C-alpha cells in the first residue's frame, strides 16, 4: 500500500515552499547517501593506509621473520594468490552468518513482541535472556558440535546466540518508546491493541530494530568464525586455524582481514537496508 503512494509523483511539483519535495529527490536519496558514505569513509581509510605504511616500513627495516610478522604487502600478495580458496571459505562463513542473523531477527522480534505484550513474560523472560548472554560461548560451542555435528546447525546456533540479544532488546525498547499521546490518538480513533501495534508501534520501532541489527551484524561473522574454530570442515574459522598450525602467518592475516572486511560489508548492508525501509528519517 505504501509502495503505491511512493511511486506516484505529486500533481503539482512546484507549488509552495515545500512543493519541490517530489519523486526526484527520493530517487536520488540512495545516490546522495553513497556520496556521503564515501566522504565519511575517507578519514578512516587514510588512517588505515598510514598504519599499513608504518607496519610495512617496520617489517622492511627490522628484517623480522615473515612467520612472526609478515608485511602487509606480502599478506596482500598471498591473499591474491589464494583468492579462490579464500572465496570458497568466505562463502561458507557468510552463509552461516546470514542464516544465523535471519534466525536472530525472527527470534528477537518474537521475543520483543512477547515481552511487550505480557508483563509476566517480561518478568520471566528478561532475566533469562540476560543470563543467556553471560554463558561463555567458548564452553558451549564444543558441546554444540557434539550435539549437532560438523555441519551448518551448530554455527547457526552460535551466531544466533551471539546476535539475538541486541535485536530483542532494541526492538522491545522501541516498542516501549511509543509516544503516549499517539497511543491516546489511536484510542480515540477506536483502534484496538493489534491495530495500534500494526499501524503505530511496529513502524515507529523499526529504527530501533535496525540499531539492534547493526550491533548484531558486527557479531555475526565473528560468531560464525568462532563456531568454525571449534569444529568444522570449511569456513574462514577452520582456514585460519589450519594456517596457524602450519605457520602460515601471512595467510592467517589474510583471513583476519577478510573477516573484518566481511563484517564491515554486512554492516554497510544493514545501513542500506535501513535507508530503504526507514525512509522517513
Amino acid at each position, binding site marked *: *500500500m*505504501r509502495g503505491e503512494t511512493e511511486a506516484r509523483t505529486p500533481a503539482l511539483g512546484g507549488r509552495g515552499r515545500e*512543493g519541490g519535495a517530489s519523486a526526484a529527490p527520493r530517487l536520488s536519496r540512495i545516490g546522495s547517501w553513497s556520496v556521503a558514505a564515501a566522504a565519511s569513509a575517507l578519514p578512516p581509510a587514510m588512517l588505515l593506509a598510514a598504519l599499513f605504511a608504518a607496519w610495512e616500513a617496520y617489517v622492511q627495516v627490522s628484517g623480522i621473520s615473515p612467520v612472526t610478522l609478515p608485511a602487509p604487502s606480502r599478506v596482500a600478495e598471498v591473499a591474491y594468490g589464494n583468492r579462490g580458496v579464500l572465496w570458497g571459505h568466505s562463502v561458507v562463513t557468510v552463509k552461516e552468518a546470514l542464516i544465523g542473523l535471519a534466525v536472530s531477527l525472527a527470534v528477537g522480534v518474537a521475543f520483543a513482541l512477547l515481552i511487550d505484550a505480557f508483563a509476566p513474560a517480561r518478568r520471566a523472560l528478561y532475566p533469562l535472556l540476560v543470563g543467556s548472554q553471560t554463558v561463555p560461548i567458548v564452553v558451549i560451542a564444543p558441546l554444540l558440535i557434539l550435539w549437532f555435528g560438523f555441519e551448518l546447525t551448530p554455527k547457526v546456533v552460535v551466531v544466533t546466540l551471539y546476535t539475538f540479544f541486541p535485536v530483542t532488546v532494541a526492538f522491545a525498547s522501541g516498542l516501549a518508546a511509543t509516544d503516549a499521546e499517539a497511543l*491516546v490518538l*489511536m484510542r*480515540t480513533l477506536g483502534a484496538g491493541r493489534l491495530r495500534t501495534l500494526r*499501524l503505530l508501534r511496529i513502524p515507529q520501532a523499526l529504527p530501533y530494530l535496525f540499531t539492534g541489527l547493526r550491533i548484531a551484524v558486527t557479531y555475526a561473522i565473528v560468531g560464525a568464525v568462532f563456531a568454525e574454530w571449534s569444529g568444522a570442515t570449511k569456513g574462514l574459522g577452520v582456514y585460519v586455524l589450519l594456517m596457524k598450525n602450519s605457520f602460515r602467518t601471512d595467510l592467517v592475516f589474510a583471513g583476519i582481514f577478510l573477516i573484518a572486511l566481511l563484517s564491515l560489508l554486512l554492516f554497510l548492508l544493514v545501513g542500506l537496508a535501513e535507508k530503504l525501509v526507514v525512509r522517513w528519517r
Partner: protein
Amino acid sequence: MAQPLLQVRDVSLTFGGRRPVEALRGVSLSLETGAFVSIVGPSGSGKSTLFNVIAGIIPPTSGEVLVDGESDPDRRRMRCSYMFQKDLLFPWRSVVDNAALGLEVSGACTKREARERARALLPRFGLAGFEASRPSELSGGMRQRVALLRTLLLGRPLLLLDEPFASLDALTRRDLQQWLRATWRTGSEAALLVTHDVREAVRLSDRVYVLSPRPGRIEAEIEVPRGAEGRLDTLQSARCEQEVLAALRIEEAAL
C-alpha cells in the same frame, strides 16, 4: 432548543495515589448542536483532563457526561473526534494516508475508500498537490491542517480541539483560526476548544467558559454575541476579551 449535543453534569475528578490530586471540581457545561464553545484556563487547570473525561478516556470520580445522549464511555468515544496540540502525524505515512488514518482505523470503509475521501478534501484544506508528501516536508500550519482533516473525516458529531494551534507561530495561528471557523462544520456538529489564548477563544467561539486553576471549576460563562454569518465586531470582541480576562484575573487575585 433541542437537547444539547454535549452535557457535562457536575463532574469531579481526583487522581488517586499516595498524594491525591484534585483535578476537576463540579464542572458542568453544555454544548448545543451548531455551537463552537471554548474553555479558557491557565496551565494546569485540568483543561486536557476535562477533555479526556468527555472523550471517555478517563472515567470521572463523580458526575456524568452525555454525548449525543450516550453516557457509556466507549460509545461516547466513538462520537468524539479529538485533535491534539501535537499534530501526531505518522512520519512513515504520506499526507493522504495520514489524513485517512482515522477512517481506516474506524473500519467504517475500506482503505481505498478512506484514501479517496481524504484526497477529495485536500484542496479545501489547502493541501492540494501534497497528497504524496511526507509530514516532514510540510510546514507546521500544513501539518496541523492534515491533523484536522484526519479528525474531521471521521464525521463524528463532537469535535474536541485541545490547544490545536499552541505550537504555531502567531501569523500562521491567525490564519488557521479564520480557516477553522469556516471549515469545522465539514464533518462535525459542535466543537469544543481548549486554549489559554483569550483572543483565540473569543474570535472562534459562540460561548467561552473560564476554568479556574486546579482544582478546575467553571469560573465564568461568557456569551459572544455574533451577528449575521457569525460576524463579530471589534468593539464586542474587545468587550468579551475584557470579560474573560477579568474572570481569569479575579481568580489570580484570589490566589
